[in-house]
């Protein structure tokens, strides 16, 4: 560990809502995507829960909207060091989808897959108990496509690459497998309060 950097003062006042190494992006919402943005019509979108479940289930756009509405109001944190306070998303709780699909006793992890083929892995306990959503609304309007619209995963207590844009599938797994960024050096869990940015953190 190096000591202080010569001449660096840093910001004097620090918001306690910021995890270590993060800054407040204010009203900006940076876009970070490794692939071209896909164009997805809501009528052709669906979400499937499969893998280690008793009842693999697929919901269309209309079917998903008939499920109980659930909202998240709070902060989000990107591994590239911006955080955004007081966001407001709405959609359906992942708990609701899992209640229908019924994970088996062997299900311990989830692989989320996007329309683009993007994947990210999560421990099952990080998407249950009111901690994760499948969302189609942001700030009272449709979720913009560059932010993952029509529908993205939202797991706000983890770094935001876990909140897969354009999500179409949640596959329950017995053993953890690395997703897209996780194969490329990023952490398997990604807790911003523990600064789990890269493999080995």
């Amino acid at each position, binding site marked *: 560990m190096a000591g202080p950097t010569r*001449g660096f003062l840093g910001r004097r006042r620090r918001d306690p809502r910021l995890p270590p190494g993060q800054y407040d992006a204010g009203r900006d919402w940076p876009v970070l995507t490794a692939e071209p943005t896909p164009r997805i019509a809501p009528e052709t979108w669906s979400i499937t829960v499969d893998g280690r479940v008793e009842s693999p289930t697929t919901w269309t756009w209309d079917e998903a909207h008939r499920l109980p509405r659930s909202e998240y109001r709070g902060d989000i944190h990107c591994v590239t060091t911006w955080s955004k306070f007081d966001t407001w998303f709405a959609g359906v709780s992942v708990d609701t989808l899992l209640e229908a699909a019924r994970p088996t006793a062997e299900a311990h992890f989830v692989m989320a897959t996007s329309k683009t083929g993007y994947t990210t892995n999560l421990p099952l306990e990080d998407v249950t108990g009111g901690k994760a959503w499948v969302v189609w609304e942001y700030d009272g309007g449709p979720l913009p496509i560059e932010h993952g619209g029509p529908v993205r995963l939202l797991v706000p207590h983890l770094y935001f690459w876990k909140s897969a844009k354009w999500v179409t599938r949640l596959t329950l797994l017995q053993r953890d497998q690395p997703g897209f960024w996780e194969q490329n*050096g990023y952490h398997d869990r990604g807790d911003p309060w523990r600064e789990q940015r890269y493999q*080995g953190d």
Partner: protein
Amino acid sequence: MTGWGTATVAGVRRPVPQAVELRLDVHDRVQHLPGQHYVVRLTAEDGYTAQRSYSVASAPGDPLVELFVERLDDGEVSTFLADVVEPGDILEVRGPIGGWFVWDGADPALLVGGGTGVVPLVAMLRTARELGRTDLLRIAASTRTLAGLPYADELLAAGALVVATREAHGIRPPGRLTAADLVPLWEPGQTAYVCGSSGFAESASRLLVDLGFPAADVRVERFGPS
């Protein structure tokens, strides 16, 4: 993934306005691949830290790691690096990072950069020169003005197509990159590397996909506020 280490600042240059080029002697350095980045972490006397990622411009064979830093007026890290850092300073660094936006040095690639988004593409160009394989690369760069484009001379010397959006360039009027610009650069088997601001990356990657370039072969690196 490598942990945090240190680097001695060996050189500081300001080749274009509002930017600084840092040449770093990275201690216990791990060789990078072109397209990867480093994280720089600053620590205040009271323990407060701030960290940001910067693309590497140098090739793996360069004894120093060259980072190109755009100075953002409200950027607490970039203003420090641009205004305060001097040769001899020790910086805390971590890298190389990133396994996706990298060129393997063996397959044909179409490089499309906007503004400071050319930096990782310059690392790819320099790597191609080291390998004697510049024939594998086709390069297009977009900038507001030629004077504001990092590594402009090096890109032009390599035959890059450079378009300026705010000034005439040769016989070309000011304007954005178009599909007609990209068609002659497109060759079978290429992977496209698109890097720039979010707006540039979005429009350039869309141009490629609309031309018929397979979306799965387009790798995108975005930076800066949306």
